[in-house]
């Protein structure tokens, strides 16, 4: 339980696409419950917020465990986005740190980053921010101990095993390696968030500045 009105379901095991697809299956299943106010997917977890505090949370946790064991992973064929990136330079200033951490030259970090195909696992944290699966483990780099105070929206980032594009300008602890000028969130669009669960992202180098 998280307080009296929310339950966080956390999947056991590693951060794999299959575990994430089982979380997606759980979302679809939980949407049918009449007592749900919001379903918030995270990285291999799902927060269920109820309209009223459930009297018997154990009944719900049993229901969740049963659903988790019985539901097949849910495939979502999302849209494919090709995102142009200006790698390096002042808007990708942590490229050197990623290079130092991984022991790979910056050119190799960029190659491994743009060769991958990424999947939007969850949208959250800030409006429109997508948690991306698919980072090559060779360029995984821990979050910075001292966050950047004012990282611009559109910064292409690495945070541990997760990849992302910052959605808002502000403090950010992930490593910046480049920049793109797509708009991830507009509250006045019919679908405010550009990315949805299951969308696939490819990064294309527009320029490289080392």
């Amino acid at each position, binding site marked *: *339980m*998280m*307080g*009296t*009105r*929310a339950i*966080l379901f*956390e999947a056991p095991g590693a*951060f794999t696409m299959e575990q994430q697809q089982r979380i997606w299956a759980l979302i679809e299943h939980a949407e049918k419950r009449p007592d749900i*106010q*919001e*379903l*918030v*997917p*995270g*990285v*291999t*977890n*799902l*927060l269920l*917020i109820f309209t009223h*505090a459930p*009297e018997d*949370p154990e009944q719900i946790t049993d229901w969740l465990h049963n659903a988790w064991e019985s539901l097949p992973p849910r495939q979502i064929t999302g849209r494919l986005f090709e995102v142009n990136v200006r790698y390096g330079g002042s808007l990708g200033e942590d490229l050197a740190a990623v290079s130092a951490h991984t022991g790979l030259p910056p050119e190799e970090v960029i190659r491994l980053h743009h060769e991958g195909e990424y999947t939007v696992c*969850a*949208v*959250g*944290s*800030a*409006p*429109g*921010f997508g*948690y991306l699966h698919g980072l090559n483990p060779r360029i995984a780099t821990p979050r910075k101990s001292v966050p950047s105070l004012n990282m611009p929206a559109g910064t292409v980032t690495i945070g*541990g095993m*997760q990849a992302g594009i910052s*959605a*808002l300008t*502000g403090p950010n602890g992930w490593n910046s390696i480049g920049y793109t000028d797509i708009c991830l*969130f507009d*509250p*006045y669009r019919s679908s*405010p*968030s550009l990315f949805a669960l299951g969308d696939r992202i490819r990064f294309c180098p527009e320029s490289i500045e080392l």
Partner: protein
Amino acid sequence: MITILETAPLNTIQDQGRPGYRNLGVGSSGVMDSLALEIGNILLGNAPEAACIELQTYPFVIRFDTPTSFAITGIEATLTLDDRPVLTWSVETAAPGQVLRVGIPKTGARAYICVEGGIDVPVVLGSRSTQLRGGFGGMDGRFLEAGDELATKPASASLSGYGAVPPARVLENQSGDGKTVLLRAVPGADYARFTPESRERFWDQGWRITPQSNRVGYRLSGTPLTLLERIELRSYGIIPGIVQVPPAGEPIVQLADANTAGGYPRIATVIEADLWRLSQARIGTSIRFVECSHKTGIAAQQPIDSYLDDLRLMVAHYRASCQSRNGTNSRGTA
């Protein structure tokens, strides 16, 4: 209409929040003290979703450009309408041109200027609340500024002279020494991952609210808490009231403007029924967490619900008798 004559930063338009968009990364926003807004809206006969002005900095001065019924809830402070003192937690009707001044609170931190019909700003993603990080909702997604004009509904009748007993006086106040704010909390998912001494200290120690506390969250100071071993969590959805412990060991209580996801270990969650007390606790105040079960957490809502039911009944009677005395109905026609 209302014109803002004087304001410091941090004051915004808020309503009861924007549920339903956390899966797009959009947090709830909304008033920090939802009980105070609910009381204001009941006093004025408003729909529960009506929006208000939330004040965090003072003094705040506005001019009513049309006849407006209003109530200020959340705090105790000196209020003047032109030069006449008016009461907090009470309904008054201002004539066009009258100036309302809200002084520095004597008790409480956040004031709610509620007006009949609510503050009319465009609804964005189902709410009028200001989403500061996203830059939308409320007044263009920003803090209020002097010169801002806010649309309101003209008063339907000249209501005044009734109010609510502030909830802090009615609802069981648990604090023993009268200074420490007690907050009931349910242990969180990572509770057992803290050392036994830290678990004990979490409940026993008074935590001070630091100046780095705002609508996003309250950062607390005290002897740091330690984990049995370092853990790296995957990002998970959070709700207001969750108490997280960053690596430095001093807890943060996430609140209305928090991100929708976090990654720090979770030691506990403050129950919803006590969040209004926290949002009225000022910087420097000492708070203590009181361990509470799921059942107690649910039961804690009951006294608040009865208080609100009584208030609804009283207000309905009062408004009916006021209107028959004035020879007006709720639409303000004879």
